[in-house]
């Protein structure tokens, strides 16, 4: 299952589906970084609202995505982590330290627009 990546002005928006395999996550990692390069994007929003489970692999991949994109000079915002998923992540001991998060897509866009003062 591929993750759709939408281009919105200077930002990219990747929307996770419910059941992503490790292979899907790896593909997304490469795809996102390539598109950031291609479109000279300033930021990426990863919307995980639909994700049923955030296990160690998924959260590590998200951290890696954010760090790779930072190395390109762009920013990543993870949006839509569900309360139950957040609770399970904390129990598992998983953190997304150093990665920006926001409540939902709208808040994520507002955060980036404020930060870059663009008119997306």
């Amino acid at each position: 299952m591929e993750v759709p990546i939408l281009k919105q002005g200077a930002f990219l928006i990747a929307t996770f589906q419910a059941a992503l395999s490790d292979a899907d996550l790896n593909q997304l990692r490469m795809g996102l970084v390539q598109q950031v390069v291609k479109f000279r994007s300033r930021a990426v929003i990863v919307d995980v609202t639909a994700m049923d489970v955030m296990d160690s692999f998924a959260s590590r991949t998200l951290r890696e995505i954010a760090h790779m994109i930072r190395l390109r000079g762009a920013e990543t915002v993870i949006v839509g982590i569900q309360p139950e998923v957040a609770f399970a992540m904390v129990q598992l001991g998983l953190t997304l330290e150093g990665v920006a998060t926001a409540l939902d897509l709208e808040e994520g866009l507002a955060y980036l627009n404020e930060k870059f003062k663009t008119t997306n």
Partner: protein
Amino acid sequence: MSVGEIRVAINSDQDIVSARQKGRVVANELGFSSGDATLIATAISELARNIVSYARKGQITIRQVNGLNRRGIAVIADDEGPGIADIRQALRDGFSTSGSLGLGLPGVRRLMDEFEITSQLGKGTTVMVKKWRP
């Protein structure tokens, strides 16, 4: 209500997803809250991931368990992989031999109510976890 035993063969990363989805369905059928179902599905995801990472194949069994005055879910992950040399070490936060995060087993233990592990070098590993309905 009674739920039959469900077995999911774990041979690839795709099976991790189907095992945790089936676990969530069983948890819902047993009357667990959706928050608890997420904890159970996350634990299954980690256990199945250990199978793929360390043993390459194995199986996840999900079934109802009945206590004296309570009902719950049991998840059994077993494989015929290399086994774990030092279980105590494997249960410590931060320990990993496959270059992964190493949070798997201690994390799973925190997600569930009961945790049992048996492992024999060269024979395989079995992890059984249970969660009781509040």
